[in-house]
């Protein structure tokens, strides 16, 4: 085999994938960077270059800092709760019990339904006058009367944000649980046997066998969750529009708010988002020593 043939070897195998990624993912990124330096009218006409004007306008937004900080809270809290609950639930659903198959089926519901639909269900269920959740809370005596500030969860920024984080956890759990369940099944049962012979209790076995061996599956689920939660759009959009003001917005929904009329500025928000994604990727690569692993 000549050097050239060897160098070209991968081409037929990889070219379709590279072409598709280039066409659908990378090209739009380039367009977006360009847009962030353009001066664009609200109905889409390009009026020349804006230099750094869009970025200057973005950084002058009084809401920007709080939106960025809120995004960090959103990602960290949602992902942390998802992973912890995911570990617990994967363990639970790994136990053999009658009807397990049906119970596992129920778990996929939030995954099978689109996130947009799930968000709308919760917007409906949290309606302050007649949402089923509020009716239930009233029947339980937790809230006193319908149609009040107390039942208006989505009208109060902090309460709304907590509910939306809950929805985000719910829609992230199915994938997480299944990923971890798959991970659990790769752990040889004889390891547990051996440990039991040595007199280890369950907690100790969990810590020294399950958790370390679950690491690969855990890492994958973690990464996918971080990315999905960071980019999550429908939950906040359908439930509060990021309002009042921008007080329940994350960077993704904030970008959409801007996009209604401030297209260039919105593109620069996207660029800022990319920068944050790159940072997350770098941290991920560092933490998981990814490069060593693929080789």
């Amino acid at each position: 085999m000549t050097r050239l043939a060897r160098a070209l070897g991968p081409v037929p195998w990889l070219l379709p994938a590279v072409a598709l990624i280039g066409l659908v993912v990378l090209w739009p990124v380039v367009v977006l960077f360009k847009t962030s330096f353009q001066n664009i009218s609200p109905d889409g006409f390009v009026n020349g270059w804006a230099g750094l004007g869009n970025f200057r306008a973005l950084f002058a937004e009084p809401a920007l800092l709080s939106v960025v900080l809120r995004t960090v809270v959103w990602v960290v809290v949602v992902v942390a709760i998802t992973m912890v609950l995911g570990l617990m639930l994967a363990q639970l659903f790994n136990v053999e019990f009658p009807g397990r198959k049906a119970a596992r089926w129920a778990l996929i519901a939030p995954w099978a339904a689109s996130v947009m639909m799930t968000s709308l269900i919760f917007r409906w269920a949290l309606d302050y006058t007649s949402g089923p959740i509020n009716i239930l809370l009233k029947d339980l005596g937790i809230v006193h009367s319908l149609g009040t500030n107390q039942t208006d969860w989505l009208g109060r920024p902090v309460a709304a944000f907590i509910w939306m984080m809950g929805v985000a956890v719910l829609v992230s759990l199915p994938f997480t649980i299944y990923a971890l369940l798959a991970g659990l099944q790769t752990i040889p049962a004889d390891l547990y046997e051996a440990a039991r012979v040595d007199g280890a209790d369950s907690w100790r076995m969990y810590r020294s066998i399950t958790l370390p061996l679950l690491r690969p599956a855990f890492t994958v689920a973690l990464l996918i969750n971080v990315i999905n939660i960071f980019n999550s759009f429908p939950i906040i959009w359908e439930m509060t529009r990021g309002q009042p003001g921008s007080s329940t917005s994350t960077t993704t929904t904030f970008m959409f708010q801007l996009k209604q009329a401030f297209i260039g500025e919105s593109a620069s928000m996207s660029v800022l988002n990319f920068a944050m994604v790159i940072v997350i990727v770098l941290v991920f690569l560092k933490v998981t020593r990814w490069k060593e692993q693929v080789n």
Partner: protein
Amino acid sequence: MKRTLIGATAIVAVGTMALSGCGGSSSTSSGKSGGTTTLKLVAADYGTGPANTSSKYWASVADAFHKANPTITVNVQVVTWANFDTTVQTMVQNKQYPDITEGDYFSNYAQQGLLYPASKVLSNPGNLLPAFKAQGSYKGVQYGMPFTTSSRTLFYNKKLFKKAGIMSAPKTWADIQTDASKIKALGDTGFGLPLGSEEGQAEALLWMLGNGGGYQNSSGKYTINSPQNIQTFQFLKKLVAAGDTEPNPANKMRTDQWQQFAQGKVGMINGSPALVPIIESAKVLKDSDWTSVPIAGKNGPLTKTLGVSDNVAAFKTDGTKAAAIKKFLDFTYQDTYQLKFDKEYDLLPATTSAAKALASDPIFGPFLTALPHSIQYPSDTAWAQVKTNIQQNIGTAVTGDPKTVLDSIQAKASAN
């Protein structure tokens, strides 16, 4: 009816237009063959379902027109409201211009010379309601022709009023305050105040008008943080704090509040004719249970209210179809078709003659008397951005400090 698009549509519609304005082939078919002319009409869908889709309305108009003018065929494409902007903008981007659009009107198309002035495609442009002329004009020439309009009035629930022992319709802010607190005592919402992004710019303006304020002064300068406007929001803030409105109006949507009113749970709300079918379909309030009156102002009812219009625009395409378009628009703007449209969708006419014909209608009368004196949204190029900013932030003026919020909206508006 510049509706606020729900879902991500607006954003996407506009956002996706960040294009260099080129692309696509410029194949403008002349639409002429064998002495006949074909007109392409793109219209927004006002229907709520297949039963009353605007396709039906336009098909009947186009058929009748074709019978009268066999050499001209009108092809109608009806697009849902949510997609109207994107559809038209995409066509323009691709230079596949429609001949006529009915729905939102884009002033920059006039600016770019793509449109016929009204005087070229209508025999009697003077019959169009003059109140909407400025909004469709560029440099003093009218391009956007109002086709259907609506104005805002104050709806109130007579049943709740009676139950609360209120004898007369609210006329002043003080009335609103006392009436709302009486209704609140019954366990219902006194005043429905949707200040969320969906329609916050309309609600805010209606209140500003009540105190002699508004978005712009007479010379077209933005005056969002004028003392009158600040005072208005200080009043609203008090109203909200007293619990006389729904909880947390800052992010409440109009759709939800109208629904609440239709369910009989709200005492008063600002509405347009579009609220009428919602009340009817909810089947909770009888016709005698509610009514609509001029909007209450600080010291008395408004003499001028917010009026909005959807417009017809005629594209030049290859420049040969002006005569055909004129024939069709003259036909369409007849009172018969104006009234048919308005009856079907609970909207108001856009011509003086049709408005006169409808003036005695018990439901539409109050809206119509308000129409000729109506105030419009600003029509300058900055408005799109100002509006977005108002929709996003105006609600916080009743939770935070009114002056600070209005100052910051004004700062962004005058920066343009």
